[in-house]
């Protein structure tokens, strides 16, 4: 089920009635939330709930064993059990086809003819998110940063909590499980604020991502032609905006829905396109993933504790695997490689050039960062390296030549809205939505909110899936 659907409105309305009605005690409310979360997931593909159950059971048992076990080898054994099961799921369901394709290419290159039947593996929705979430629980318990969940119900709800189940944020156990221990109820203001964020998230997804930007991005990336300079840039800018609004929209919905139930989820996006440099970009883009990679991959790989060279290697490995996390294709790995390269170059330059950042040179540097990020999105979105290379070539050398696939209105729309997006992000670096709505007052906020509702209603898409569901 997706948030941008009529089914979800009915589903969530029923949950709110049961949650705030006088029918259930706290434990039963949690059971209801757990059951609802399975329904939320199962309405997509019921049998794949079994994977969720297995992941939940394995990490519940592993977490308890690790916590109570005193022998280091036994603790390590249970940690390995958790890692093997979760990473095994990922390896099979997400990377099975990719591994097989690469194996075939390798064998064929070696001169052997080998053509097995395709495996046709279904990618379970959100598997990358919930496996990372459950692994973080087991690792935290292993590192004695966290006590196991008090009850199986609390743990199962942590793994399955429907607002963030299929596309994050990847919530740490310490941030969410403890919220389940005491009865939660949103105040009227928190409930309304959650509703506002839910509307904002749906507006980002339905109006901005699907209506304003997806058409131009699809037209350019599916063109299969040598493109004109302006069309290539418009397509890439459109995809940059689309993926931001799509994913940030999902996270905003998840946070809003959680507020409406009285829970708090961590921020996942903080105006990333206003970032000055790539270190800041990764502190603002998909924060729950970048912090996960930092804590469970970059730091264990040595982080910055063993000199510059080791740090650069750790950084690059982290970004390469981060790229692979997004999708089973070499284009995603190359996307990670570009980000790793940017981060390393930025660290080298930062060591050599030191100057005060003010509003104007900050704007210039943020603009440069935004442009460079756009180059990386080409590899993220393109089906293959050939398509990516065509678009990059047009972005760099296609001025005055190449196929024109977008009309004047679409070009103007994309450039103007992307410009507004960039400037808004730059302005919002030091602000929050709450600060802006507070200074705007109830009338302006109400009219803006109503405008978002109106635009959502007249856009009424067909419940397009969020891009990150496939990751």
């Amino acid at each position: 089920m997706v948030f941008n659907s009529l089914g979800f409105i009915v589903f969530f309305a029923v949950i709110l009635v049961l949650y705030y009605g006088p029918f259930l005690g706290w434990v039963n409310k949690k059971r209801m939330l757990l059951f609802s979360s399975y329904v939320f997931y199962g309405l997509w593909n019921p049998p794949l709930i079994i994977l969720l159950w297995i992941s939940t059971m394995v990490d519940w048992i592993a977490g308890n064993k690790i916590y109570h076990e005193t022998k280091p080898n036994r603790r390590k054994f249970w940690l390995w059990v958790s890692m093997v099961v979760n990473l095994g799921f990922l390896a099979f369901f997400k990377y099975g086809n990719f591994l097989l394709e690469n194996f075939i290419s390798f064998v064929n290159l070696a001169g052997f003819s080998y053509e097995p039947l395709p495996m046709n593996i279904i990618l379970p929705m959100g598997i990358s998110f919930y496996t990372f979430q459950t692994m973080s629980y087991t690792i935290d318990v292993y590192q004695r940063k966290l006590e196991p969940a008090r009850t199986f119900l609390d743990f199962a709800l942590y793994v399955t909590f429907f607002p963030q189940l299929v596309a994050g944020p990847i919530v740490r156990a310490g941030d969410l499980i403890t919220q389940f221990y005491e009865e939660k109820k949103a105040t009227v203001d928190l409930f309304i604020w959650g509703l506002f964020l839910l509307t904002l998230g749906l507006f980002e997804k339905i109006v901005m991502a699907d209506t304003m930007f997806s058409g131009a991005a699809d037209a350019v990336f599916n063109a299969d032609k040598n493109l004109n300079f302006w069309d290539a840039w418009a397509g890439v800018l459109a995809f940059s905006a689309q993926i931001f609004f799509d994913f940030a929209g999902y996270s905003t919905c998840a946070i809003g829905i959680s507020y409406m139930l009285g829970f708090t989820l961590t921020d996942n996006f903080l105006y990333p396109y206003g970032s000055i440099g790539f270190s800041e970009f990764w502190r603002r883009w998909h924060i729950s993933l970048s912090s996960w990679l930092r804590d469970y991959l970059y730091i264990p790989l040595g982080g910055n504790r063993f000199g510059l060279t080791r740090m650069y290697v750790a950084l690059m490995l982290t970004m390469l695997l981060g790229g692979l996390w997004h999708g089973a294709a070499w284009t995603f790995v190359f996307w990670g490689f570009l980000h790793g390269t940017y981060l390393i170059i930025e660290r080298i330059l930062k060591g050599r050039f030191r100057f005060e950042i003010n509003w104007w040179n900050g704007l210039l540097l943020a603009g440069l960062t935004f442009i460079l990020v756009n180059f990386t999105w080409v590899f993220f979105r393109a089906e293959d390296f050939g398509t990516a290379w065509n678009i990059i070539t047009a972005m760099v050398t296609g001025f005055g030549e190449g196929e024109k696939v977008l009309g004047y209105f679409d070009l103007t729309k994309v450039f103007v809205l992307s410009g507004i997006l960039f400037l808004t992000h730059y302005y919002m670096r030091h602000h929050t939505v709450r600060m802006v709505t507070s200074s705007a007052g109830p009338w302006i906020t109400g009219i803006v909110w109503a405008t978002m509702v109106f635009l959502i209603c007249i856009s009424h898409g067909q419940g397009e899936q969020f891009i990150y569901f496939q990751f």
Partner: protein
Amino acid sequence: MSRTDTPLHLQKTLWITILFSLISVVSWEFFWRSRGRIPDLPDDKFLWAQTRAKVENPDASSVVIIGSSRTLFNLQIPEWQKMTGVKPIQLSTAGGNPIPVLEDIIEHTNYAGTLIVGVTPGIFFSKISKDSRSWSRTQKRIDFYHKRTYADRLNHFLSIPLQNNLAFLTASENEWADDIDLKSLLRATKWGVRTGKENDPPFNSFQYLDIDRNTRMSNRCAHDTAFANTVKRVWQSHNKKAKKSPKDEAVLYVSNLVKKFKDRGGNIVFLRSPSTGFYKEQEAKNQPREEFWDVLLEKTGVKGYHYDDYESLKNFDCPEWSHLSGEDADKFTNAFVTLLLKDNVLPQPQNH
């Protein structure tokens, strides 16, 4: 987006939002109604899949109609039901080749009732290619049917009453030029000529559809010659590069499927609906009857009804060269079903 203690007057904000949301949405609805729009269901993959599901549990007297837009427009379900007592299952797809549906029904169901297969020559006899526009148009719906989730079904079920009552909810996956969802309104905005596509004639919707996928030509298209001419310009634009279809390819493909269907007791009939003007000329040139239609009937051994062969089926006028008006579609259905009953292709109705 973090929580702070700043006062926001959220309850007042919410009331203002509700007020302005209601005003804007209601005004939008009245605006489009004042422009002559009425609530209508879109002919989309969701409704097609819901209809396709009915083939899974048919009874012996069931009738399934597959074809392109001509069987969609020209065979009227209420008229058919009135005459036979059986409500046919309408699975035709505008612009879509019916062969993938024929294959899907034969290969993936146990259906052994009556299949009415509409033959629009330019589509039916086109090259057998899963990448072709007409093939993939149908295949996408079949794939969606087999992959649709419970969430898809729930969303569609909930959307029906809204679409049946609100005129502004009429977006279609056909992407008509006069669709009024925000994306379509933006798509229709053109500033000068840059890509060349701006010169394509606008393709406006010329039909209404109900929950059974019964489709009727709009009165505007049937009676407003200027509007019908806009549709004619689209047909000319779509078919300016039309060439002669490959011989035997589709016939051979269909013959194998038909044999399998007949072997399990299925009853199958081909129908060639009327066309006029530009389409009639194109079809005579690119898919001459003796080389295509006659060969199809001969190779498959199936009963076929060509409009030119029956007094009651010919002499209909197609306002935009390809489809019948609602009134004529009723008459055409009546005449066609009368022939089917007379030829014992359909069982005689119990209560008639």
